[in-house]
């Protein structure tokens, strides 16, 4: 009974995680310029990965393995926030990345 409940919760978390990843990618197509696209990628992927990590926690064979899974999320967050900032700064600094952007209007 309890195992079944955990599995249902895991399933929901995994599916929501994938949905948020998909939404983050959809943001790349729907949002109009580089900066707004970064918004979609950082926030949606942060949440997507968080849900997937949560879903995988009950499967961790040991306490340290669980912590390692959490660590993956923390490191991915730091990398995502840092690269988001660097890309944003590059766009603002006038370094274009070759993709069509509409960032030059202010």
């Amino acid at each position, binding site marked *: 009974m309890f195992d079944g409940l955990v599995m249902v919760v895991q399933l929901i978390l995994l599916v929501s995680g994938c949905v948020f990843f998909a939404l983050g990618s959809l943001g790349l197509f729907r949002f109009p310029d580089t900066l707004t696209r970064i*918004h979609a990628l950082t926030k949606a992927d942060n949440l997507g990965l968080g849900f997937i990590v949560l879903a995988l926690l009950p499967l961790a064979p040991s306490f340290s393995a669980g912590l390692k899974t959490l*660590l993956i999320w923390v490191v991915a967050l730091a990398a995502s926030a840092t690269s988001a900032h660097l890309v*944003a700064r590059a766009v603002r600094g006038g370094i274009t990345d070759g993709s069509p952007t509409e960032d030059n209007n202010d």
Partner: protein
Amino acid sequence: MQPALASPIATFAARAVFFAGLWWILTLGAPSAWGFGAVVIVLVAWLSVLLFPPSIHRLHPLGLVQFIAYFLGHSVLAGVDVARRLLTPSLAITPGEITLSLRLPEGGPRWLLANTLSLMPGTLSVHFDNNLLTVHCLDTSVDIEAGVRRAESQVARAFRIPLAPWEGAQS
């Protein structure tokens, strides 16, 4: 009220303990990994003291826990917010930028705030200029500054930095 600067040796020891914890996690506690690990931990802790000398701004456990709770809650809000805007047929965004003057001191606290803002609802840190932070917003019609100030005070609490109250909106 200014806390004392930690000595390099104390900082080295504290960071070595932290890295030992990380090593334990990475190697899943395998005993055979500790020989190599001890060398790596000492080298990395030593290098970290050289690259990032001891700072007067240290994270405090209780403040850090409160910050994490705030961060997790707002991560969910941020993801749902961006998803909602994406799925609205008319694409509910009015992007823009605001520049704010920060009350946090330089170094770790500002770095944490900038990275936090990039993951919080509707904000993305773009540019630092002395104590001025430029934030790109997905929707300029909501009160961006209130959100930034809340994040700022959360960061300040994690570091136990007293902040002067902010006065109204400043564009």
